[in-house]
């Protein structure tokens, strides 16, 4: 019973949502909208639990004065400040919440994103070491594509951008589409396995 009820719900809702794609009738579409709203309600409840978990896990570490507990204090203060300002003054422009978002969150997000430039450099350095035949091929293709994307490539030899386009349009595109088709079939197979209850990995305990 502990497994039968959830499996039945998964089967029924899965089949229904699949049918929504093929049945444009208003009744079916309206019902699917209701189900999507339920999903939102479930998500909101889960968000509450998640926030509670974040607070409890870090508060315990501060209380026990575990290693690096100072960072947890910063996290808790930031969490509570953002929560209180959001609840007290709302999230419209000009409120303290938006001040925190604009002057702290966004610069921090941009900083993390900017780190990608450095990570790409270090990853490219490792990827382009021509230790094997395949790596040498990758290096050669990478160099041609990089040169073909900048004006100096055309100045060195006018055919470099043409070769770049060929690499991107044929071998690269063929590989990408191959992966995409395999992945799409995998996704459909996973969905079907879930629908018929063969795939139970998302259940706790013996599925």
């Amino acid at each position, binding site marked *: 019973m502990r497994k039968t009820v959830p499996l039945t719900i998964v089967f029924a809702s899965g089949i229904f949502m699949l049918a929504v*794609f093929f049945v444009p009738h208003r009744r079916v579409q309206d019902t699917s909208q209701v189900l999507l709203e339920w999903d939102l309600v479930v998500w909101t409840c889960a968000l509450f639990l*998640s926030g509670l978990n974040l607070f409890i896990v870090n508060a315990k570490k501060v209380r026990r004065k575990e290693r690096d507990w100072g960072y947890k204090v910063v996290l808790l203060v930031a969490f509570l400040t953002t929560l209180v300002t959001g609840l007290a003054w709302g999230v419209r422009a000009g409120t303290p919440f938006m001040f925190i978002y604009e002057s702290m969150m966004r610069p*921090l997000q941009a900083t993390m994103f900017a780190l*990608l430039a450095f990570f790409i450099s270090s990853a490219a350095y490792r990827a382009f070491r021509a230790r094997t035949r395949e790596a040498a091929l990758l290096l050669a293709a990478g160099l041609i594509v990089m040169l073909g994307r900048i004006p100096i490539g055309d100045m060195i030899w006018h055919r470099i951008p043409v070769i770049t386009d060929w690499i991107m349009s044929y071998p690269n595109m063929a590989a990408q589409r191959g992966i995409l088709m395999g992945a799409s079939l995998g996704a459909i197979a996973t969905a079907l396995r879930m629908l018929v209850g063969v795939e139970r*990995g998302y259940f706790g305990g013996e599925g």
Partner: protein
Amino acid sequence: MLRVTQGESEVTVGRERLRAVSIVVCLAVVAGAGSAKTQEAGLAPPRSVRAEDQPNDDGSALSLTWQLSLDDGERAQLVTVYRILRATDAAGPFEEVRSVGAGTDRFMDTDVSDTLRYFYIVQATDGIRSADSEVVGPVTPASNWFHTGRVNILIPIALFSIILFYFVWKATRGIDLFIRRIAGLNAVDEAIGRATEMGRPILFVPGIGDMSYPQTIASVSILRRVARRAAEYDTALVMPNYDPIVFTVAQEVVQGSYVDAGRPDAFNPESVRFLTSDQFGFAAGVDGIMQRERPGAIFLLGYFMAESLILAETGYSTGAIQIAGTAELAQLPFFVTACDYTLIGEELYAASAYLSREPMLVASTKGQDSGKLLIMILIIMGVVLETLGITNLTTWLTVR
């Protein structure tokens, strides 16, 4: 006399010239009057107006088509706008629904109810004069029970499902099925073993997708296996989460795995934690965990976007063995570069079957391979037919 005669003759010629001029003037006046009469008649109206139910919808649209007015085209460019007038009775009153520019011969009315009947007039206008088409209708929008334009999707899905269930049926009869070796999945136990030997935790990151992403579902299936091994080896597991629902599911899965392994007491509720639903905030949090807790094995499995390289490179710098897997094409090169093993696309979905060796799951993976074979055959057929100038197959397969 002669002079007089000549004079009379000149007078006669003058009279005839006058008559000729008068006739020309009269003709010109008549012609002008005729022209003015044409202008007063107004513009030519739109022709062959048709109002129909929009097919394959939920009954919220009607489609109108018409032939352009004779005064809207290369010969005459007098029409500037077509007004769409609508009424629920043939006698009116007709109200304007929308205007469309000259040269337009269709309109879709999406502000309709499937409980009412509608009549339409298409009115051509040049800003001063106007010409109405005949009244068309009644027409009522209908809610359709099947989207006929999606038959080309339904048939392949049905075919694929039949193949899949055929292999599952074969598995129930005890027929042994072979799956090729997947290095990244073989390394799962090795990575957990290494973390255990080093006395370091295992870090499992399910990506930034929610539970509606098949990649996240596949990731959670692998988590179940990893958590069970972690419980058996008594190795700490750390799992930061981006999505609240994935967090609650993961908590249940990890706790269940510890129970399955016979170690419910070893389950630490703090091991599965929620971080944030902010993409780069999550990346910063996971990077912090990597730097502080120094995991021995890192699993990056699921849906990833720009944070993939930030996480993989930080993991690389800690010296942990890294197993990554995603179906996101743009992130795969980053994982291949920075991680020890990468599950590419379908390998991620095959993971639960491969790791558990459960006959039913293995069978579905075999079905997946047969689906690929079917697609390959279709591609070859498509190439041959297109080369021969036969476009029916590719046209039918095009998603509309």
